C-alpha cells in the first residue's frame, strides 16, 4: 500500500560550500538561518580526501548546524568505505539527539578516482575494502547494515534506573549485533542509546553503475531528474509498488537561478514519474541562496506542488513508518 505524503523540497550542498569565504562559521551560520523553515531537508555531502577541497567533516558540520536550526532535516554525508561504521553510527545517532529527530545519513559512493584518493589518505588497512567497484559496493552494504543494527542494539526502554535491584540498565535489552561480513566483523552493542527516530533516515544517490542492492537498502534515493526516472522507480520497486525506497528527483539549479519556470515544470514531471520530492542542488550557494529561498521555493508552493513543511521527525516527513527495533521481542 502506498502511503500518501507531501511532495518534499530540500537542498543539496557539500561541506566545502563555503568556498573562498574566509569566514567559514559566518557562512554556515548565515546559510542555515536562511534554509531552516524554507524546506524539509538539507543534504551535506562530505568531500573526504578530495585533494585540496576536502573541507569540513560533514557529520560534524551537521551536528554544529543542528542546534542553530529548529525544523529542517539534516542528512549528513559519509563515505562508508573509508570510515569505521561504529563511529558513523554513533555520530549520526548523536545528530538525531542534538536535532530532536531530524537526522539522516547520506551513504556516499565515491567514484573510482575519489576512492583512490581516499584510499591513499587512510593507507592500505586490514578490514577496509580493496578499491574496485564490486568490493566497494559489497563493503558499503555491509557498513550500512552495521550502522543500522547498532542503532537498534539498545531497546528503547533499556535504561531502567531500578533502585531496588540496583541496576541502571537492563542487560537483556542490550544486544550484540554480531555482524560478520566479507572484510570485517563488528560485535556491538553501540555505546549510544537508540536515537529518537530509532532508525535515522538512510539516503543514497543513484548511480547507474552501482549494485542495485545499495539503493534498495536505503530509505531515500536521490535520482537525477533528467534520467529515466520512471524506469528507475520501477527497478527500485522490485517487490511491488510502494516497496522501494522513496525517490527524490535532483534538480540542478543554474548559478543565476534564471530558470524558475523550467524548474517548476521539471518538478511537476518528476512527480508524475513517481518522485516524492525534489532536491535542489546548489552549486554556488553564495549567490543562489537568496533567489532560491525568496523566489524558487515560494513559486513551487504557489504552483501547488509543495506544501508548507509539515513538521514531525524526518522519517515521518518522508512517509516512512515508525522504525521497529529488529532486536526487540515482539509484544
Amino acid at each position, binding site marked *: 500500500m502506498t502511503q500518501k505524503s507531501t511532495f518534499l523540497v530540500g537542498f543539496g550542498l557539500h561541506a566545502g560550500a563555503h568556498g573562498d569565504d574566509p569566514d567559514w562559521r559566518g557562512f554556515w551560520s548565515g546559510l542555515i538561518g536562511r534554509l531552516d523553515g524554507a524546506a524539509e531537508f538539507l543534504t551535506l555531502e562530505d568531500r573526504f580526501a578530495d585533494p585540496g577541497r576536502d573541507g569540513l567533516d560533514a557529520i560534524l558540520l551537521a551536528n554544529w548546524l543542528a542546534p542553530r536550526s529548529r525544523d529542517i532535516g539534516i542528512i549528513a554525508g559519509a563515505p562508508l568505505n573509508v570510515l569505521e561504521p561504529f563511529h558513523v553510527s554513533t555520530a549520526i545517532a548523536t545528530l538525531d539527539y542534538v536535532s530532536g529527530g531530524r537526522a539522516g545519513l547520506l551513504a556516499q559512493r565515491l567514484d573510482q578516482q575519489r576512492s583512490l584518493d581516499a584510499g591513499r589518505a*587512510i593507507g592500505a588497512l586490514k578490514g577496509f575494502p580493496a578499491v574496485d567497484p564490486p568490493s566497494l559496493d559489497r563493503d558499503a552494504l555491509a557498513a550500512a547494515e552495521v550502522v543500522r543494527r547498532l542503532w537498534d542494539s539498545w531497546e528503547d526502554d533499556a535504561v531502567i534506573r531500578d533502585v531496588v535491584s540496583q541496576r541502571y540498565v537492563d542487560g537483556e535489552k542490550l544486544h550484540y549485533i554480531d555482524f560478520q561480513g566479507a572484510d570485517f566483523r*563488528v560485535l556491538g552493542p553501540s555505546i549510544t542509546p537508540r536515537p529518537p527516530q530509532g532508525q535515522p533516515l538512510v539516503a543514497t544517490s543513484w548511480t547507474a553503475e552501482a549494485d542495485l542492492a545499495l539503493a534498495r537498502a536505503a530509505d531515500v534515493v536521490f535520482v537525477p531528474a533528467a534520467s529515466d526516472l520512471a524506469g528507475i522507480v520501477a527497478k527500485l520497486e522490485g517487490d511491488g509498488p510502494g516497496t522501494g525506497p522513496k525517490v527524490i528527483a535532483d534538480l540542478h539549479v543554474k548559478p543565476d537561478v534564471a530558470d524558475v519556470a523550467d524548474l517548476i515544470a521539471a518538478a511537476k514531471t518528476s512527480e508524475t514519474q513517481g518522485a516524492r520530492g525534489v532536491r535542489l542542488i546548489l552549486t554556488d550557494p553564495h549567490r543562489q541562496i537568496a533567489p532560491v529561498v525568496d523566489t524558487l521555493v515560494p513559486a513551487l508552493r504557489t504552483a501547488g506542488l509543495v506544501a508548507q513543511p509539515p513538521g514531525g521527525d524526518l522519517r515521518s516527513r518522508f512517509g516512512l513508518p515508525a522504525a521497529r527495533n529488529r532486536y526487540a521481542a515482539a509484544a
Partner: protein
Amino acid sequence: MSKKQIILGAQFPGVNNFTVWSDPAAGSQIAFSSFRHFAETVERGKFDFIFLAEGLRVREQKGRFHELDVVGRPNTLAILTALASITNHVGLIGTLTTTFNEPYPLARQLATLDILSGGRAGWNVVTSPGAFTGANFRRGDHLPFRERYERARDFLETARSIWQGGDFHVRSPYFDIAGRTGAGPLPQGAPIIAQAGDSDEGRELAASHADLIYSRHGTLEEGQAFYADVKQRLAKYGRSRDALKILPGANFVLGETLEDALEKQKAIRLQQVSPKNAIVFLEQVWNRDLTAYDPDGPLPEVDPDVAVEQLAQGRAARYDNRLETARAWRELAEREKLSIRELIIKVTGRKQFVGTPAQVAEEIDRYVQADAADGFVFAPHLTPGGFDEFVEKVIPILQERKVFRQDYAAPTLRGNLALPQAWQPVAKAV
C-alpha cells in the same frame, strides 16, 4: 610575586559508578538538554574547558553487560561540535583513541571542530585495550600491547603534519598515507593536546608532545612529586616549564559547614558504591564470582584467582598484583574493622575537596600555589546540574582571591590556558 592562575576543566559525568543515577536530581545522560545545561553552566563559571572521557564498548562483568552503573554516551566529536555551536568561549576537549582511529579522518575531524569552535578544540590522546574494544572495529585487535604508545606518538606526529595544511605525505612505521587538505591553517595552529598515561612512557609522551596532563595524583605530596617529575622532563625537548599544564582529576562536595559537607560526602559515597557494586569491585581483584558474599560482611578468606582471564572487561586494569592487593585490603579491613562495602568505599575514593565553598576554594588554591597542580579537571557526581552550586559559590571566591579569571581573556583555548603558540612544525617523516 603574582599568584599562579588556576586552570579548571569540567568533565561531563562519565560511564562509571562515580556518576550517581539513583538521586532524584540525576537527569538524562544522553539528552542534548543535559549537555546544554552542563556547557552553559561551566561557561558561565568561566571554566577553561569541558572534558569528555571515552568508552567504545559497553563494559562487561563475568561475560554479561555491567548493569549497575550509568552507561550510554554520545559520539565524542559529534557532541563537542554541537556544544561548539551553543557556546562561545569554553574549550572542548575529547578523549579519542589512537588505536581505533586513523590519522587522516581523525585529524580532519579535529580540524573541523577547531574551525567550527573558533579555536577551542582539544584532544586527550589515549590508547585502547586491543581485543575487547577491537571487536567493534574493522581492524579488530591489530596492535601488540607494547606498541600502543609508539603508534600514539607516530599518530600524533602524522596528525601534526596534516594540520599544517596542504600536501601531506607520511611514511612511517605505522602509517603510509598521502593527500592534500584544504583545511588549515587552524585557528589554534593545532588543537590542544592532552595526555593521561601515568607510566614512564606516558609521562615521556606528555613531555615531548602534550599541552596538558590529566593525572590521578590525589594527595599534595604525590601531586608535587608527579609535578616535579614531569616538569623536569620538558627541558630535554626544548620546552619551557609553562608549556605543559598538570591537571589532576578531582571531585568536590559542598556543604553549609564542614560537618554538613562530610555528611553529604558519606551519603554520596554510599550511592556510588551500592552493595552489588561493592561486590563487583571486589571481583576485579579476586577475579572470582563473589556474589554469594555479604557486602556488609567481612572480606573473603579465599585468595584471588590469578590463573584465568580477568572477569571485568572494558575498565582500566588497576590491580596488577592481585594477591598483593588482596593482602593489603584484608589488612586494612581487619585494622579498621571494615565490611566489604566500607572497604571499597575507602579504597576506590578519588581526590575530593570537601567543605564549605570557602574551604574548597582555599584548598584548591593551596594545591595550585604549592605546585601540586596547575589546576584540576573536576567530575561532579550528578548529571546535568553537578556544577550549578560550584559555579554559584566557589568560582566567585576564587575570583576574589585573584587566582581565577573574571572573564575569558582570549578567543582560543590555547590563549585562555596561557600556553605558548602551537608547537613549531616538526620535520615531516617522508
